[in-house]
Protein backbone atom coordinates (compact mmCIF):
# COMPACT_ATOMS: atom_id res chain seq x y z
CA UNK A 1 0.00 0.00 0.00
CA UNK A 2 2.83 2.35 0.86
CA UNK A 3 4.20 1.93 -2.64
CA UNK A 4 0.96 3.12 -4.13
CA UNK A 5 0.78 6.08 -1.78
CA UNK A 6 4.22 7.23 -2.85
CA UNK A 7 3.32 6.77 -6.52
CA UNK A 8 0.39 9.08 -5.91
CA UNK A 9 2.54 11.63 -4.09
CA UNK A 10 5.07 11.75 -6.90
CA UNK A 11 2.35 12.25 -9.47
CA UNK A 12 0.88 15.08 -7.42
CA UNK A 13 4.27 16.73 -7.21
CA UNK A 14 4.81 16.39 -10.91
CA UNK A 15 1.35 17.76 -11.46
CA UNK A 16 2.06 20.80 -9.33
CA UNK A 17 5.29 21.57 -11.09
CA UNK A 18 3.29 22.17 -14.16
CA UNK A 19 1.25 24.78 -12.41
CA UNK A 20 0.24 26.73 -15.47
CA UNK A 21 -0.77 23.52 -17.15
CA UNK A 22 -3.03 22.73 -14.21
CA UNK A 23 -4.74 26.11 -14.32
CA UNK A 24 -4.98 26.03 -18.08
CA UNK A 25 -6.57 22.60 -17.95
CA UNK A 26 -9.14 23.78 -15.43
CA UNK A 27 -9.93 26.80 -17.58
CA UNK A 28 -10.37 24.63 -20.66
CA UNK A 29 -12.77 22.31 -18.91
CA UNK A 30 -14.68 25.19 -17.47
CA UNK A 31 -15.12 26.72 -20.86
CA UNK A 32 -16.23 23.42 -22.30
CA UNK A 33 -18.83 22.98 -19.58
CA UNK A 34 -20.10 26.49 -20.10
CA UNK A 35 -20.53 26.07 -23.80
CA UNK A 36 -22.30 22.73 -23.38
CA UNK A 37 -24.72 24.24 -20.90
CA UNK A 38 -25.49 27.15 -23.16
CA UNK A 39 -26.17 24.83 -26.05
CA UNK A 40 -28.55 22.73 -23.98
CA UNK A 41 -30.24 25.80 -22.61
CA UNK A 42 -30.92 26.91 -26.15
CA UNK A 43 -32.32 23.51 -27.04
CA UNK A 44 -34.51 23.42 -23.96
CA UNK A 45 -35.95 26.87 -24.53
CA UNK A 46 -38.35 25.85 -27.21
CA UNK A 47 -38.66 22.17 -26.37
CA UNK A 48 -41.95 20.93 -27.66
CA UNK A 49 -42.04 17.84 -25.44
CA UNK A 50 -40.75 17.84 -21.85
CA UNK A 51 -37.32 16.26 -21.94
CA UNK A 52 -36.67 13.17 -19.80
CA UNK A 53 -34.13 15.06 -17.70
CA UNK A 54 -34.64 18.55 -16.33
CA UNK A 55 -32.28 21.35 -17.26
CA UNK A 56 -31.14 21.74 -13.66
CA UNK A 57 -30.24 18.06 -13.48
CA UNK A 58 -28.54 18.30 -16.84
CA UNK A 59 -26.41 21.22 -15.73
CA UNK A 60 -25.32 19.25 -12.67
CA UNK A 61 -24.54 16.34 -14.98
CA UNK A 62 -22.31 18.48 -17.17
CA UNK A 63 -20.37 20.07 -14.34
CA UNK A 64 -19.74 16.71 -12.76
CA UNK A 65 -18.52 15.45 -16.12
CA UNK A 66 -15.98 18.21 -16.32
CA UNK A 67 -14.89 18.01 -12.70
CA UNK A 68 -14.33 14.27 -12.86
CA UNK A 69 -13.16 14.03 -16.44
CA UNK A 70 -10.18 11.99 -15.36
CA UNK A 71 -12.61 9.42 -14.05
CA UNK A 72 -14.48 9.01 -17.32
CA UNK A 73 -12.46 9.72 -20.38
CA UNK A 74 -10.65 6.90 -22.04
CA UNK A 75 -8.19 9.13 -23.88
CA UNK A 76 -5.78 8.92 -20.99
CA UNK A 77 -2.61 7.49 -22.39
CA UNK A 78 0.16 5.76 -20.59
CA UNK A 79 2.77 5.91 -23.29
CA UNK A 80 5.15 3.95 -21.13
CA UNK A 81 2.85 0.97 -21.21
CA UNK A 82 2.21 1.33 -24.92
CA UNK A 83 5.92 1.39 -25.70
CA UNK A 84 6.51 -1.56 -23.44
CA UNK A 85 4.02 -3.66 -25.35
CA UNK A 86 4.93 -2.66 -28.89
CA UNK A 87 8.66 -2.85 -28.36
CA UNK A 88 8.55 -6.26 -26.76
CA UNK A 89 10.31 -5.13 -23.62
CA UNK A 90 7.43 -6.73 -21.79
CA UNK A 91 9.87 -9.47 -20.84
CA UNK A 92 11.33 -7.18 -18.18
CA UNK A 93 7.93 -6.57 -16.68
CA UNK A 94 7.33 -10.28 -16.43
CA UNK A 95 10.34 -10.62 -14.23
CA UNK A 96 8.76 -8.52 -11.53
CA UNK A 97 7.59 -10.25 -8.39
CA UNK A 98 4.21 -8.50 -8.42
CA UNK A 99 1.26 -9.69 -10.39
CA UNK A 100 1.34 -7.79 -13.67
CA UNK A 101 -2.37 -7.08 -13.90
CA UNK A 102 -2.44 -5.68 -10.40
CA UNK A 103 0.65 -3.58 -10.94
CA UNK A 104 -0.60 -1.95 -14.13
CA UNK A 105 -4.05 -1.52 -12.63
CA UNK A 106 -2.60 0.34 -9.66
CA UNK A 107 -0.50 2.52 -11.94
CA UNK A 108 -3.45 3.52 -14.10
CA UNK A 109 -5.60 4.10 -11.06
CA UNK A 110 -2.97 6.37 -9.50
CA UNK A 111 -2.70 8.41 -12.67
CA UNK A 112 -6.39 9.09 -12.84
CA UNK A 113 -6.77 9.77 -9.14
CA UNK A 114 -3.92 12.25 -9.07
CA UNK A 115 -5.19 14.03 -12.15
CA UNK A 116 -8.73 14.27 -10.83
CA UNK A 117 -7.69 15.35 -7.35
CA UNK A 118 -5.86 18.34 -8.78
CA UNK A 119 -8.63 19.50 -11.01
CA UNK A 120 -11.96 18.60 -9.48
CA UNK A 121 -11.87 21.09 -6.62
CA UNK A 122 -11.46 24.29 -8.60
CA UNK A 123 -14.15 23.26 -11.05
CA UNK A 124 -16.59 22.13 -8.40
CA UNK A 125 -16.10 25.21 -6.29
CA UNK A 126 -16.33 27.65 -9.18
CA UNK A 127 -19.32 25.88 -10.63
CA UNK A 128 -21.07 26.00 -7.29
CA UNK A 129 -20.77 29.75 -7.08
CA UNK A 130 -21.92 30.54 -10.59
CA UNK A 131 -25.06 32.61 -10.97
CA UNK A 132 -28.28 30.74 -11.58
CA UNK A 133 -29.18 28.81 -13.60
CA UNK A 134 -25.63 27.79 -14.51
CA UNK A 135 -24.63 26.73 -11.07
CA UNK A 136 -23.91 23.33 -9.71
CA UNK A 137 -26.45 22.42 -7.07
CA UNK A 138 -26.03 20.33 -3.97
CA UNK A 139 -27.46 16.84 -3.89
CA UNK A 140 -30.96 16.63 -2.36
CA UNK A 141 -29.76 14.93 0.83
CA UNK A 142 -26.75 13.41 2.56
CA UNK A 143 -27.70 9.84 1.70
CA UNK A 144 -27.74 10.74 -1.99
CA UNK A 145 -24.31 12.24 -1.62
CA UNK A 146 -22.94 9.13 0.03
CA UNK A 147 -24.46 7.01 -2.71
CA UNK A 148 -22.86 9.35 -5.24
CA UNK A 149 -19.39 8.92 -3.76
CA UNK A 150 -19.78 5.15 -3.68
CA UNK A 151 -21.01 4.94 -7.25
CA UNK A 152 -18.36 7.38 -8.46
CA UNK A 153 -15.51 5.41 -6.93
CA UNK A 154 -16.92 2.12 -8.18
CA UNK A 155 -17.24 3.78 -11.57
CA UNK A 156 -13.57 4.72 -11.45
CA UNK A 157 -12.54 1.17 -10.63
CA UNK A 158 -14.77 0.02 -13.46
CA UNK A 159 -13.22 2.49 -15.86
CA UNK A 160 -9.68 1.37 -15.06
CA UNK A 161 -10.78 -2.23 -15.59
CA UNK A 162 -12.16 -1.23 -19.00
CA UNK A 163 -9.00 0.67 -19.88
CA UNK A 164 -6.96 -2.43 -19.06
CA UNK A 165 -8.59 -3.98 -22.10
CA UNK A 166 -7.29 -1.11 -24.14
CA UNK A 167 -3.74 -2.03 -23.26
CA UNK A 168 -4.39 -5.73 -23.66
CA UNK A 169 -5.74 -5.12 -27.15
CA UNK A 170 -2.46 -3.48 -28.11
CA UNK A 171 -0.78 -6.86 -27.70
CA UNK A 172 -2.90 -8.00 -30.60
CA UNK A 173 -3.11 -4.93 -32.78
CA UNK A 174 0.38 -3.67 -31.97
CA UNK A 175 -1.01 -0.25 -32.70
CA UNK A 176 -1.72 1.96 -29.72
CA UNK A 177 -3.43 4.51 -31.90
CA UNK A 178 -5.85 2.05 -33.41
CA UNK A 179 -6.93 0.59 -30.08
CA UNK A 180 -7.17 4.00 -28.50
CA UNK A 181 -9.39 5.28 -31.27
CA UNK A 182 -11.94 2.51 -31.12
CA UNK A 183 -12.13 2.41 -27.35
CA UNK A 184 -11.97 6.14 -26.97
CA UNK A 185 -14.63 7.17 -29.43
CA UNK A 186 -17.10 4.42 -28.59
CA UNK A 187 -16.48 4.47 -24.88
CA UNK A 188 -16.91 8.17 -24.49
CA UNK A 189 -20.00 8.29 -26.62
CA UNK A 190 -21.71 5.61 -24.60
CA UNK A 191 -20.64 7.16 -21.32
CA UNK A 192 -22.72 10.14 -22.21
CA UNK A 193 -19.86 12.53 -22.89
CA UNK A 194 -21.04 13.59 -26.34
CA UNK A 195 -24.76 13.44 -25.67
CA UNK A 196 -26.18 12.71 -22.21
CA UNK A 197 -27.62 9.23 -22.12
CA UNK A 198 -31.16 10.29 -21.13
CA UNK A 199 -31.30 12.49 -24.22
CA UNK A 200 -30.38 9.71 -26.60
CA UNK A 201 -33.11 8.09 -28.65
CA UNK A 202 -34.57 5.07 -26.87
CA UNK A 203 -32.97 2.43 -29.06
CA UNK A 204 -29.56 3.95 -28.43
CA UNK A 205 -30.21 4.16 -24.69
CA UNK A 206 -30.90 0.46 -24.64
CA UNK A 207 -27.47 -0.20 -26.14
CA UNK A 208 -25.89 2.21 -23.70
CA UNK A 209 -27.42 0.43 -20.72
CA UNK A 210 -26.02 -2.89 -21.84
CA UNK A 211 -22.51 -1.58 -22.29
CA UNK A 212 -20.42 -0.93 -19.19
CA UNK A 213 -19.40 2.61 -20.13
CA UNK A 214 -22.37 4.49 -18.74
CA UNK A 215 -21.84 2.94 -15.32
CA UNK A 216 -18.67 4.99 -14.95
CA UNK A 217 -20.18 8.40 -15.55
CA UNK A 218 -23.82 8.67 -16.49
CA UNK A 219 -24.93 6.53 -13.54
CA UNK A 220 -23.11 8.26 -10.65
CA UNK A 221 -23.91 11.72 -11.96
CA UNK A 222 -27.60 11.04 -12.11
CA UNK A 223 -27.48 9.52 -8.68
CA UNK A 224 -26.08 12.82 -7.44
CA UNK A 225 -28.86 14.94 -8.86
CA UNK A 226 -31.52 12.54 -7.75
CA UNK A 227 -32.55 11.78 -11.30
CA UNK A 228 -31.94 8.20 -10.39
CA UNK A 229 -33.83 7.39 -7.21
CA UNK A 230 -32.04 6.08 -4.15
CA UNK A 231 -33.49 2.62 -4.48
CA UNK A 232 -32.49 2.46 -8.13
CA UNK A 233 -29.09 3.68 -7.09
CA UNK A 234 -28.60 0.82 -4.67
CA UNK A 235 -29.56 -1.66 -7.35
CA UNK A 236 -27.15 0.14 -9.66
CA UNK A 237 -24.34 -0.33 -7.17
CA UNK A 238 -24.83 -4.06 -7.36
CA UNK A 239 -24.80 -3.91 -11.15
CA UNK A 240 -21.60 -1.91 -11.02
CA UNK A 241 -20.04 -4.54 -8.80
CA UNK A 242 -21.13 -7.29 -11.15
CA UNK A 243 -19.62 -5.48 -14.13
CA UNK A 244 -16.47 -4.73 -12.17
CA UNK A 245 -15.89 -8.28 -11.07
CA UNK A 246 -16.69 -9.62 -14.52
CA UNK A 247 -14.30 -7.18 -16.22
CA UNK A 248 -11.54 -7.76 -13.69
CA UNK A 249 -11.84 -11.51 -14.12
CA UNK A 250 -12.03 -11.32 -17.93
CA UNK A 251 -9.20 -8.82 -17.95
CA UNK A 252 -6.91 -11.09 -15.99
CA UNK A 253 -7.80 -14.00 -18.24
CA UNK A 254 -7.18 -11.95 -21.36
CA UNK A 255 -3.87 -10.61 -20.10
CA UNK A 256 -2.65 -14.05 -19.16
CA UNK A 257 -3.56 -15.56 -22.51
CA UNK A 258 -1.97 -12.70 -24.37
CA UNK A 259 1.19 -12.96 -22.27
CA UNK A 260 1.33 -16.67 -22.91
CA UNK A 261 1.36 -15.89 -26.61
CA UNK A 262 4.23 -13.53 -26.08
CA UNK A 263 6.21 -16.12 -24.16
CA UNK A 264 5.45 -18.86 -26.70
CA UNK A 265 6.56 -16.66 -29.58
CA UNK A 266 9.74 -15.90 -27.73
CA UNK A 267 8.95 -12.31 -26.82
Amino acid at each position, binding site marked *: MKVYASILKIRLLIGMQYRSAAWAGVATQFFWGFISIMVFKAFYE*FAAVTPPISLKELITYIWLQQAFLAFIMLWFRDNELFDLITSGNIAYELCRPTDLYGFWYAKLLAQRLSSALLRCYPILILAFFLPKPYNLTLPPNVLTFILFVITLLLGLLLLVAISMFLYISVFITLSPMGSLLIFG*VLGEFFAGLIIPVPLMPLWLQKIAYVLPFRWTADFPFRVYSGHITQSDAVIGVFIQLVYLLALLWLGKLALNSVLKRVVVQGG
Partner: protein
Amino acid sequence: MNLYFKYLLILFKSQMQYRTSFWLLSIGQFFIPFSVFAGLYFLFERFGQIKGWDFFEVALCFAIIHMAFSLSECFARGFDTFSSLIIKGDFDRVLVRPRSTFLQVLGSKFEFTRIGRLAQSAIVLLWALNNLPIEWSLVKAVTLFFMITSGVLIFTGIYMLAATMCFWTVQGLEVANIFTDGGREMAQYPLNIYHKWVARFFTYVIPFGTVNYLPLLFILGKTNGNEVLYMLTPVLGSLFILPCFLVWQFGVRHYRSTGS
Protein backbone atom coordinates in the same frame (compact mmCIF):
# COMPACT_ATOMS: atom_id res chain seq x y z
CA MET B 1 5.42 29.98 -52.31
CA ASN B 2 7.46 27.44 -54.15
CA LEU B 3 9.61 26.70 -51.14
CA TYR B 4 6.54 25.89 -49.06
CA PHE B 5 5.48 23.21 -51.51
CA LYS B 6 8.96 21.74 -51.40
CA TYR B 7 8.61 21.56 -47.61
CA LEU B 8 5.24 19.82 -48.02
CA LEU B 9 6.77 17.29 -50.37
CA ILE B 10 9.51 16.30 -47.98
CA LEU B 11 7.02 16.10 -45.11
CA PHE B 12 4.70 13.94 -47.17
CA LYS B 13 7.56 11.60 -48.01
CA SER B 14 8.39 11.43 -44.30
CA GLN B 15 4.86 10.57 -43.25
CA MET B 16 4.45 7.96 -45.95
CA GLN B 17 7.15 5.98 -44.24
CA TYR B 18 4.61 5.23 -41.57
CA ARG B 19 1.71 4.17 -43.72
CA THR B 20 -0.38 2.10 -41.31
CA SER B 21 -0.14 4.73 -38.66
CA PHE B 22 -1.23 7.31 -41.19
CA TRP B 23 -4.35 5.39 -42.19
CA LEU B 24 -5.31 4.54 -38.64
CA LEU B 25 -4.95 8.12 -37.52
CA SER B 26 -6.88 9.41 -40.54
CA ILE B 27 -9.73 7.01 -39.88
CA GLY B 28 -9.74 8.05 -36.26
CA GLN B 29 -9.81 11.67 -37.32
CA PHE B 30 -12.93 10.84 -39.29
CA PHE B 31 -14.78 9.18 -36.44
CA ILE B 32 -14.12 11.75 -33.79
CA PRO B 33 -16.14 14.53 -35.44
CA PHE B 34 -18.50 11.86 -36.67
CA SER B 35 -19.49 10.99 -33.13
CA VAL B 36 -19.95 14.68 -32.35
CA PHE B 37 -22.16 15.01 -35.39
CA ALA B 38 -24.11 11.93 -34.35
CA GLY B 39 -24.73 13.60 -31.01
CA LEU B 40 -25.95 16.66 -32.83
CA TYR B 41 -28.26 14.57 -34.97
CA PHE B 42 -29.83 12.84 -31.97
CA LEU B 43 -30.34 16.08 -30.14
CA PHE B 44 -32.21 17.49 -33.10
CA GLU B 45 -34.22 14.32 -33.33
CA ARG B 46 -35.42 14.98 -29.82
CA PHE B 47 -35.73 18.75 -29.82
CA GLY B 48 -36.47 19.55 -33.42
CA GLN B 49 -34.80 22.93 -33.45
CA ILE B 50 -32.49 25.23 -31.56
CA LYS B 51 -33.49 28.87 -31.19
CA GLY B 52 -35.11 28.89 -34.58
CA TRP B 53 -32.45 27.02 -36.48
CA ASP B 54 -33.31 23.65 -37.93
CA PHE B 55 -31.04 20.62 -38.27
CA PHE B 56 -29.66 21.20 -41.75
CA GLU B 57 -28.95 24.86 -41.09
CA VAL B 58 -26.90 23.95 -38.05
CA ALA B 59 -25.31 21.12 -40.04
CA LEU B 60 -24.11 23.68 -42.57
CA CYS B 61 -22.64 25.78 -39.79
CA PHE B 62 -21.03 22.65 -38.35
CA ALA B 63 -19.53 21.65 -41.68
CA ILE B 64 -18.01 25.05 -42.37
CA ILE B 65 -16.31 25.35 -39.02
CA HIS B 66 -15.03 21.79 -39.03
CA MET B 67 -13.64 22.19 -42.52
CA ALA B 68 -11.88 25.36 -41.50
CA PHE B 69 -10.57 23.66 -38.38
CA SER B 70 -9.28 20.58 -40.15
CA LEU B 71 -7.55 22.63 -42.83
CA SER B 72 -5.91 24.82 -40.22
CA GLU B 73 -4.82 21.74 -38.28
CA CYS B 74 -3.13 20.53 -41.46
CA PHE B 75 -1.37 23.76 -42.30
CA ALA B 76 -0.60 25.23 -38.92
CA ARG B 77 0.59 22.00 -37.37
CA GLY B 78 4.05 23.46 -37.04
CA PHE B 79 2.70 26.13 -34.72
CA ASP B 80 0.48 23.70 -32.89
CA THR B 81 3.48 21.53 -32.01
CA PHE B 82 5.88 24.43 -31.67
CA SER B 83 6.54 23.58 -28.05
CA SER B 84 8.42 20.43 -29.08
CA LEU B 85 10.50 22.45 -31.54
CA ILE B 86 11.51 24.83 -28.78
CA ILE B 87 12.17 22.12 -26.23
CA LYS B 88 14.43 20.19 -28.59
CA GLY B 89 16.33 23.37 -29.28
CA ASP B 90 15.59 23.22 -32.98
CA PHE B 91 14.41 26.80 -33.15
CA ASP B 92 18.07 27.84 -33.16
CA ARG B 93 18.38 26.00 -36.44
CA VAL B 94 15.45 28.04 -37.78
CA LEU B 95 17.25 31.24 -36.85
CA VAL B 96 20.39 30.15 -38.65
CA ARG B 97 18.62 29.73 -41.98
CA PRO B 98 18.11 32.68 -44.35
CA ARG B 99 14.31 32.52 -44.39
CA SER B 100 11.55 33.99 -42.32
CA THR B 101 10.75 32.16 -39.10
CA PHE B 102 7.08 32.11 -40.04
CA LEU B 103 7.66 30.25 -43.28
CA GLN B 104 10.03 27.77 -41.69
CA VAL B 105 7.76 26.95 -38.78
CA LEU B 106 4.82 26.66 -41.15
CA GLY B 107 6.86 24.29 -43.28
CA SER B 108 8.14 22.30 -40.36
CA LYS B 109 5.02 20.17 -40.07
CA PHE B 110 1.96 19.30 -42.06
CA GLU B 111 -0.56 16.98 -40.52
CA PHE B 112 -1.86 14.92 -43.41
CA THR B 113 -4.01 12.73 -41.18
CA ARG B 114 -6.48 15.54 -40.60
CA ILE B 115 -7.84 14.58 -43.98
CA GLY B 116 -10.12 12.31 -41.99
CA ARG B 117 -11.85 15.22 -40.34
CA LEU B 118 -11.85 17.14 -43.59
CA ALA B 119 -13.60 14.27 -45.32
CA GLN B 120 -16.20 14.01 -42.60
CA SER B 121 -17.03 17.70 -42.71
CA ALA B 122 -17.11 17.68 -46.50
CA ILE B 123 -19.71 14.92 -46.42
CA VAL B 124 -21.78 16.85 -43.90
CA LEU B 125 -21.44 19.97 -46.04
CA LEU B 126 -22.74 18.22 -49.11
CA TRP B 127 -25.55 16.58 -47.18
CA ALA B 128 -26.60 19.88 -45.63
CA LEU B 129 -26.44 21.81 -48.89
CA ASN B 130 -28.44 19.11 -50.56
CA ASN B 131 -31.22 19.45 -48.02
CA LEU B 132 -31.39 23.22 -47.79
CA PRO B 133 -33.56 25.39 -50.01
CA ILE B 134 -30.81 27.85 -50.95
CA GLU B 135 -31.04 30.12 -53.95
CA TRP B 136 -27.50 29.97 -55.15
CA SER B 137 -25.63 32.90 -56.68
CA LEU B 138 -22.01 33.67 -57.37
CA VAL B 139 -21.92 36.01 -54.38
CA LYS B 140 -23.22 33.28 -52.09
CA ALA B 141 -20.69 30.78 -53.39
CA VAL B 142 -17.86 33.22 -52.85
CA THR B 143 -19.21 33.92 -49.36
CA LEU B 144 -19.07 30.23 -48.55
CA PHE B 145 -15.51 30.06 -49.79
CA PHE B 146 -14.56 33.11 -47.74
CA MET B 147 -16.16 31.65 -44.66
CA ILE B 148 -13.99 28.58 -44.85
CA THR B 149 -10.76 30.37 -45.67
CA SER B 150 -11.33 33.01 -43.00
CA GLY B 151 -11.98 30.25 -40.51
CA VAL B 152 -8.65 28.71 -41.45
CA LEU B 153 -6.90 32.03 -40.95
CA ILE B 154 -8.54 32.61 -37.58
CA PHE B 155 -7.59 29.18 -36.29
CA THR B 156 -4.08 29.57 -37.67
CA GLY B 157 -3.83 32.89 -35.87
CA ILE B 158 -4.77 31.23 -32.60
CA TYR B 159 -2.17 28.53 -33.16
CA MET B 160 0.40 31.24 -33.78
CA LEU B 161 -0.50 32.97 -30.54
CA ALA B 162 -0.20 29.71 -28.66
CA ALA B 163 3.16 29.03 -30.29
CA THR B 164 4.37 32.50 -29.35
CA MET B 165 3.56 31.67 -25.73
CA CYS B 166 6.19 28.94 -25.95
CA PHE B 167 8.88 31.58 -26.03
CA TRP B 168 8.02 32.39 -22.44
CA THR B 169 6.86 29.07 -21.07
CA VAL B 170 6.13 25.66 -22.47
CA GLN B 171 3.57 25.05 -19.79
CA GLY B 172 -0.02 26.10 -19.72
CA LEU B 173 -0.35 25.79 -23.44
CA GLU B 174 -3.64 24.03 -22.95
CA VAL B 175 -5.22 27.44 -22.68
CA ALA B 176 -5.01 27.70 -26.43
CA ASN B 177 -7.28 24.67 -26.65
CA ILE B 178 -10.07 26.78 -25.22
CA PHE B 179 -10.00 28.80 -28.40
CA THR B 180 -9.14 26.12 -30.91
CA ASP B 181 -11.05 23.04 -29.77
CA GLY B 182 -13.35 25.13 -27.68
CA GLY B 183 -13.83 27.67 -30.42
CA ARG B 184 -14.68 24.92 -32.83
CA GLU B 185 -17.18 23.24 -30.53
CA MET B 186 -18.79 26.54 -29.85
CA ALA B 187 -18.86 27.87 -33.39
CA GLN B 188 -20.36 24.73 -34.79
CA TYR B 189 -23.64 26.24 -33.65
CA PRO B 190 -24.77 29.66 -34.89
CA LEU B 191 -23.55 32.20 -32.40
CA ASN B 192 -26.91 33.69 -31.53
CA ILE B 193 -27.86 30.69 -29.40
CA TYR B 194 -25.31 31.74 -26.84
CA HIS B 195 -25.31 34.34 -24.15
CA LYS B 196 -24.82 37.82 -25.52
CA TRP B 197 -21.35 38.45 -24.16
CA VAL B 198 -20.09 35.11 -25.46
CA ALA B 199 -21.35 35.98 -28.91
CA ARG B 200 -19.80 39.42 -28.65
CA PHE B 201 -16.40 38.12 -27.53
CA PHE B 202 -16.33 35.63 -30.36
CA THR B 203 -17.26 38.27 -32.89
CA TYR B 204 -15.04 41.14 -31.90
CA VAL B 205 -12.08 39.58 -30.14
CA ILE B 206 -11.71 36.19 -31.80
CA PRO B 207 -13.91 36.77 -34.81
CA PHE B 208 -15.60 33.42 -35.29
CA GLY B 209 -18.84 35.29 -35.60
CA THR B 210 -17.76 36.69 -38.93
CA VAL B 211 -17.57 33.22 -40.40
CA ASN B 212 -20.53 31.86 -38.55
CA TYR B 213 -23.62 33.98 -38.01
CA LEU B 214 -23.99 36.85 -40.46
CA PRO B 215 -22.75 35.17 -43.63
CA LEU B 216 -24.74 32.09 -42.69
CA LEU B 217 -27.93 34.13 -42.53
CA PHE B 218 -27.04 35.55 -45.90
CA ILE B 219 -26.50 32.19 -47.57
CA LEU B 220 -29.75 30.89 -46.12
CA GLY B 221 -31.52 33.88 -47.59
CA LYS B 222 -32.64 35.26 -44.27
CA THR B 223 -31.25 38.74 -44.71
CA ASN B 224 -31.87 41.94 -46.54
CA GLY B 225 -29.34 44.54 -47.38
CA ASN B 226 -26.12 44.82 -49.28
CA GLU B 227 -25.01 41.43 -50.59
CA VAL B 228 -21.39 42.36 -51.01
CA LEU B 229 -21.21 43.50 -47.42
CA TYR B 230 -22.24 40.06 -46.23
CA MET B 231 -19.78 38.47 -48.60
CA LEU B 232 -16.96 40.53 -47.17
CA THR B 233 -17.78 39.93 -43.51
CA PRO B 234 -15.63 36.81 -43.31
CA VAL B 235 -12.77 38.71 -44.91
CA LEU B 236 -12.90 41.15 -42.02
CA GLY B 237 -12.55 38.21 -39.68
CA SER B 238 -9.48 36.97 -41.48
CA LEU B 239 -7.69 40.20 -40.60
CA PHE B 240 -7.36 38.64 -37.17
CA ILE B 241 -4.20 36.93 -38.30
CA LEU B 242 -2.36 40.21 -38.77
CA PRO B 243 -1.97 41.11 -35.09
CA CYS B 244 -1.15 37.46 -34.44
CA PHE B 245 1.72 37.79 -36.85
CA LEU B 246 3.00 40.84 -35.02
CA VAL B 247 2.80 39.02 -31.72
CA TRP B 248 4.82 36.20 -33.26
CA GLN B 249 7.56 38.61 -34.30
CA PHE B 250 7.57 40.04 -30.81
CA GLY B 251 7.97 36.53 -29.43
CA VAL B 252 10.90 35.79 -31.71
CA ARG B 253 12.58 38.99 -30.57
CA HIS B 254 12.10 37.98 -26.96
CA TYR B 255 13.62 34.56 -27.62
CA ARG B 256 16.62 36.16 -29.22
CA SER B 257 17.29 38.41 -26.27
CA THR B 258 16.80 35.87 -23.53
CA GLY B 259 17.92 32.60 -25.06
CA SER B 260 16.13 29.31 -24.54
